[in-house]
């Protein structure tokens, strides 16, 4: 063929590239022949075009070259066999790898479950992106800007009416805000519960499943009541025929008859599950003052219209309250409802994190644990390879007979993937066993399920682990030069040793960091639990006094029949031999207290805006809680006109700048009150909060009762209390709690973090030590001869053990040096979140350093002693 008459060169090349040899032989000949014919019949251009077309037409399965298909499957089989053999041969390193990787994976999985569960909280609404909560920023000179969820009672209504972006708005008073329980009754059946109040559009905004009834109509009627599935079962034995039934609801707020309009199911990921839902209008009717802009109580939620921007909306409503009520200094801000759970904390009116910090913390720990487990794998495989007689030679031989670096690389990755996969199986079994305990610790209901996201996550974790663990050994081992390796030349392994050392340092630095953090968290929690709070919460039991309704005139009035009955009841309790003190109360010291403005001590205007914590309590409350008085006296039932007296705490007196406060008369909400005493500062709420100015007022009608019991007399006293209680509230169960438990509950999330992090830190250290243990085993094996010679020359066992652990000790020391300053900063940062915290003691750090030193020392020590006890004859006779 003439040169210029040849078909297009590139097409020809392409053909020979993709076609198998066998096909090229016949097909190319045919194509050339056709080309020649077309060239003479139809010209060059057509011939060339036809040729190109035919080449592409031939890209069919029969023609395409098979890429080493047979050889690769052989390689896979071979790899599997090699992996299997190396497992058999190096059992200890196999188990170290397996234990390390699988515990690492199990931890990471548990944390993954927890984190993904946290991230899903309150995300169940289909309109999630448009669902916002309106928060109020209040300002006063003492406390600065405080952001809270409490908003004016008619805000939702006004927003829906006046702001065009708002599709629906609802006021909600969550059940958890009520301290006392009400009673729902159907005939003779009585069940204690708390009601949730929500505006009628509530179910248009929140996606809550209805088993019976229409969500849109559930709150349409003012006296309608929606109940949860559980409540329906309790009341009617099933959900089937509850709609339309009438039940009686008794509580201090809105007693009366309601008819059931729907049965709903609380979403799993909700932060405020409800048992009973009532119309907010009923609530508003019982509190007419909430129709004024100056008073706040409910939460406000809005659903924005499609396309409306949350930030624009938030800016728009900033001055909304002021436009209604000129005296108000409160501004509004909107936050996505689903973000409230994780980003709920505000500082100076701007979001400042929240629970998300724990989510981040644990995510970081999970990654660290996995990486540490992977490092073990890397170190062990490269260390194993550096023993000349086995793997290096294997690689040398493979390369010499033609294995490419790529093939070897894949082989090692495959080995680590296989290992990761095996570990995953073990890890899943571990997770399965541990999940119930983990759920208990975290207060969640996590479970293993085969949903696609979970499977994807598992595969992702395995791939990540396999890749990270296998990549370094794969790169390192596949780079061996066959000639040198086979000749037995020792490579200069300086870089390799450095990397291995670096990895060990990293592992231990992380371990030390975790130890310090865990100790600090643990000590802080212990401190919080034992700190003198200014009151005594031991052996104090509390319960609802129970409400007895009577429609007689003035039953609930001051000095009315209810108050008298309550006093009689308290007297009965007081007479029990095991009872030291008893008091009724409206507010308590573990989070359920009120707040008020409008204390006027200067006769001016500006002081009225100061915010006080408000405690409304019965007689003897101060004595029962063991709050001490700095001066003056507390309320006494023997005197008259006690309602016009008040007490303050020392902080309040300090802020108000009053001298000789006892006996002074000030005004609260326009009423004159005489200060009769000053209580020493005591903490209400958790130690995250500083002691704030507090006002204590008398409210002898309070329904809740607190009993201080003599130590040792708990059992019989509780039994006696139950009897008295049943006398007053026939048919109701006697539910009680201890103040100490309530106090502990304030720290639930910290306690959980403390507990979980302790376990995970322990595991991190375990995994790191496992790795070191394995490494030490290899080092010792490598130096068997050296040890033999040393022994012959008269070295003692201890001396040899010391010598061998020296290397590792240096590494761990370096790790400690790196980790201590880091942990100092992290710990200080965390402690700054508490208003009252422990100092960072030097021994936290020294202790962590010691633990980090001792554990690996023991691990290495065991190996070295084992090695040094072998008779030198054994180690030297082989050559």
């Amino acid at each position, binding site marked *: 063929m003439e040169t210029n008459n040849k078909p297009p060169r590139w097409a020809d090349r392409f053909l020979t590239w993709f076609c198998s040899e066998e*096909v090229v*032989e*016949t097909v*190319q*000949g*045919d194509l*050339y022949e056709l080309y020649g014919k077309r060239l003479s019949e139809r010209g060059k251009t057509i011939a060339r075009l036809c040729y190109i077309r035919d080449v592409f037409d031939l890209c*069919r399965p*029969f023609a395409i070259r098979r890429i080493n298909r047979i050889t690769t499957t052989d390689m896979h089989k071979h790899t599997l066999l090699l992996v299997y053999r190396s497992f058999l041969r190096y059992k200890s390193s196999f188990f170290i790898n397996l234990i390390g990787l699988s515990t690492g994976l199990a931890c990471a999985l548990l944390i993954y479950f927890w984190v993904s569960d946290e991230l899903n909280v309150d995300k169940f609404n289909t309109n999630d992106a448009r669902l916002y909560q309106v928060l109020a920023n209040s300002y006063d000179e003492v406390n600065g800007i405080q952001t809270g969820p409490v908003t004016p009672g008619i805000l939702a209504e006004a927003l829906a009416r006046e702001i065009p972006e708002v599709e629906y708005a609802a006021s909600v008073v969550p059940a958890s805000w009520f301290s006392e329980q009400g009673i729902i009754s159907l005939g003779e059946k009585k069940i204690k519960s708390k009601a949730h109040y929500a505006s009628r559009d509530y179910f248009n905004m929140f996606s809550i499943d209805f088993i019976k009834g229409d969500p849109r109509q559930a709150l349409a009627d003012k006296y309608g009541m929606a109940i949860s599935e559980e409540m329906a079962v309790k009341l009617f034995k099933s959900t089937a025929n509850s709609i339309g039934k009438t039940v009686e609801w008794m509580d201090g707020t809105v007693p009366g008859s309601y008819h059931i309009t729907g049965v709903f199911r609380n979403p799993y990921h909700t932060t405020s599950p409800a048992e009973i839902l009532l119309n907010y209008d009923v609530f508003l009717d019982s509190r007419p003052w909430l129709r004024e802009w100056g008073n706040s109580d409910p939460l406000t939620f809005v659903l924005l219209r499609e396309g409306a921007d949350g930030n624009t909306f938030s800016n728009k409503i900033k001055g909304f309250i002021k436009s209604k009520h000129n005296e108000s200094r409160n501004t509004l801000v909107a936050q996505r409802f689903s973000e409230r759970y994780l980003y709920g904390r505000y500082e100076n009116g701007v979001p400042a994190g929240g629970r998300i910090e724990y989510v981040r913390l644990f995510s970081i720990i999970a990654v660290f644990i996995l990486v540490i487990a992977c490092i073990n794998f890397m170190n062990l495989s490269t260390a194993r390879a550096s023993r000349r007689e086995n793997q290096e030679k294997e690689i040398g031989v493979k390369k010499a007979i033609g294995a490419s670096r790529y093939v070897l690389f894949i082989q090692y990755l495959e080995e680590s993937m296989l290992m990761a996969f095996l570990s995953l199986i073990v890890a899943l079994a571990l997770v399965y066993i541990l999940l119930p305990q983990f759920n208990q610790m975290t207060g969640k209901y996590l479970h293993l399920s085969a949903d696609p996201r979970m499977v994807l996550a598992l595969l992702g974790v395995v791939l990540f682990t396999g890749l990270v663990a296998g990549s370094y050994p794969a790169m390192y081992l596949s780079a061996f030069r066959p000639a040198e390796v086979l000749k037995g030349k020792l490579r200069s392994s300086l870089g390799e040793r450095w990397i291995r050392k670096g990895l060990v340092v990293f592992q231990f630095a992380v371990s030390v960091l975790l130890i310090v953090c865990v100790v600090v968290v643990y000590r802080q929690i212990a401190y919080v639990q034992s700190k003198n709070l200014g009151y005594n919460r031991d052996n104090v039991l509390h319960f609802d006094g129970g409400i007895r309704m009577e429609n007689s005139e003035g039953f609930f009035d001051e000095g009315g029949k209810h108050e008298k009955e309550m006093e009689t009841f308290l007297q009965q309790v007081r007479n029990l031999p095991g009872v030291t003190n008893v008091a009724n109360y409206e507010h308590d010291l573990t989070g359920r207290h009120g707040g008020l403005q409008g204390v006027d001590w200067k006769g001016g205007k500006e002081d009225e805006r100061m915010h006080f914590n408000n405690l409304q309590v019965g007689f003897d409350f101060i004595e029962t809680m063991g709050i001490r008085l700095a001066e003056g006296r507390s309320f006494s039932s023997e005197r008259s006109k006690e309602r016009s007296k008040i007490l303050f705490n020392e902080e309040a007196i300090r802020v108000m700048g009053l001298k000789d406060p006892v006996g002074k008369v000030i005004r609260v909400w326009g009423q004159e009150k005489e200060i009769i005493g000053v209580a020493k500062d005591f903490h209400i709420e958790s130690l995250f909060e500083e002691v704030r100015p507090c006002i204590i007022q008398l409210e002898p009608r309070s329904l809740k009762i607190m009993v201080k019991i003599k130590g040792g007399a708990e059992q019989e006293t509780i039994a006696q209390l139950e009897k008295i209680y049943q006398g007053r509230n026939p048919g109701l169960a006697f539910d009680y709690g201890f103040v100490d438990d309530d106090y502990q509950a304030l720290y639930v999330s910290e306690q959980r973090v403390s507990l979980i992090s302790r376990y995970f830190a322990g595991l991190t250290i375990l995994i790191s030590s496992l790795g070191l243990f394995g490494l030490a085993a290899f080092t010792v094996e490598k130096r068997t001869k050296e040890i033999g010679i040393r022994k012959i020359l008269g070295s003692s066992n201890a001396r040899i053990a010391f010598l061998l652990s020296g290397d590792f000790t240096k590494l761990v020391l370096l790790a400690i040096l790196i980790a201590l300053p880091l942990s100092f900063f992290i710990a200080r940062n965390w402690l700054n979140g508490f208003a009252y915290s422990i100092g960072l003691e030097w021994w936290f750090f020294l202790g962590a350093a010691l633990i980090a030193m001792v554990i690996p020392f023991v691990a290495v020590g065991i190996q070295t002693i084992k090695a040094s006890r072998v008779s030198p004859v054994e180690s030297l006779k082989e050559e």
Partner: protein
Amino acid sequence: MKIGAFEEIVLLAVGSLGENAYGVTIKEILQERTGKNPSIGALHSALYRMEGKGYLTSKEGGATHDRGGRKKKYYQLTAFGRKVLIEANALRLSFAEQIPELNFFVK
């Protein structure tokens, strides 16, 4: 017996060409008889497939200059291939018999 319409016609073409059946000649005879230009890829794909099924055998030879020195692959019907063709034909006729206007084919 599984045989597609295109495969059948290729098989017939190979049979009719006798000793001289290779890629180019098969393509040319198909073009001549059917008036359609079969794609070279489809043709070779069918040939390879039928060789695999045992309808065809092949032998190589006849490298020429205008083939760039590449050998031809000559195809031949096997006994099995012939049987497949006969059966396919019989099937066709059995249907044709039942259509009155097509009866003249048979008788």
